[in-house]
């Protein structure tokens, strides 16, 4: 049986790990500190799946009923 990819589930939006430069750029445009972002745990099933480490930033692309597509960032803790 092929391995299940949790990200394929209809309830789970697309998660993406940001590179360091990308993360820096995002924080600058948002004028935020890392700590002000919402969090995601390292042992979160999806964080594990994309191989996130503590301190990384994850980009979440949600399907939103009000704005079509919304992008959120989460700090891995």
């Amino acid at each position, binding site marked *: 049986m092929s391995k299940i990819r*949790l990200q394929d*589930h209809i309830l*789970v939006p697309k998660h993406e790990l940001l590179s360091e430069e990308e993360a820096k750029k995002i924080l600058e445009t948002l004028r935020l500190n890392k700590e002000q972002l*919402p969090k995601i*745990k390292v042992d979160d099933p999806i964080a594990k799946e994309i191989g996130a480490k503590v301190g990384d930033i994850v980009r979440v692309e949600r399907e939103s*009923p*009000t*704005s079509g597509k*919304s992008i959120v960032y989460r700090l891995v803790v």
Partner: protein
Amino acid sequence: MKYKDILDKYPFPQSVKEEINAELEKFNVKKTQARKIVERCFQAYLQNLIEPGEPAGIVAAQSIGEPGTQMTMRTFHYAGVAEIDVTLGLPRLIEIMDVRKNPSTPMMTIRLTEEYAKDREKAREVANRIEATYILDIAEVLTDIRNMQIIVRLDANAMERKQLSFEEVKKKIEKGLKLPVEGNEEEMELVIQIKEPSYKTLMTTYEKLRKMVLTGIKEIRRVIIRKEEDEYVLYTEGSNLKKVMKIKGVDFSRTITNNIYEIYEVLGIEGARSAIIREAKSTLEEQGLEVDDRHIMLVADAMTSAGELRQIGRHGVAGEKQSILARAAFEMTVNNLLDAAIRGDIDKLTGITENIIVGQPIRLGTGDVELVSRIGVKK
């Protein structure tokens, strides 16, 4: 999108961009005109944004709370979806906000892979793999005190329905009880001999046999097959997402449960967020109440922003406020004040609640704005 290059200069949400683009395309506007129109749209968009200093949380609380007063207080079960009882109305909404680990009526909607979804027999096969089957479902169990035996009389019809063979049942019982089982396939009878001549051992073995799950998943007490459009869907009483998603024939990506905590454990925090929105929305809609999505989304965001599920209440969002006075104003006033006094805590009066308590202007709306005028500076 034809006007993508113009629209991408503005921070519109995706759906607004698409809408403007569709309108512009309809009238086939020239680029220079389009630029002006989009600029005007952007002005309108800015005017419709929530204003800085607006208490979004309080607006959300009131917008959910007010229609909530009209919800049924009674734990109301309905038999709409295939005769399965589901908690609805206010009790269900409270359950969602409280992040109960064991909701009163867990339920799953299981969709099947293409191969299994079209055929009722195939769907039945998957259902059998999921539904917990006990010995009493397929047999009659007798205890013989004189010979210290447990006699299992299997029902051939029930076994056929559950797609179990005589040998399978025998092996399952042997493994579960760690006792040798003698079988007579012709008479469909299994005999378990107890060696110790003790009535108690006989009874405990009997109890163990009765509670043993032969096939399926323990938590799932009942499975109902229903045809929806052109595919068969399984509805279950009881829920165990982790086990169900590994069952052959289950389309994992479209299988959901109403137990939000389980979704959090299996699918992570973002999955839990979607589930909260989905469940809260369907609970409100079922009662005929219309609440704007944004209010529910705000609640879901507050519950999931810490990376783990927090309930709305003193063990979660409200209990983690840094201000002592704000916590005391919410619940357990005396305990909060006493604990703070013992620890010698300091309240810096930065929030809203504590400033209302001490009678200061709050930092919300116009209270959040400071006016600075430079006197004597000429332009």
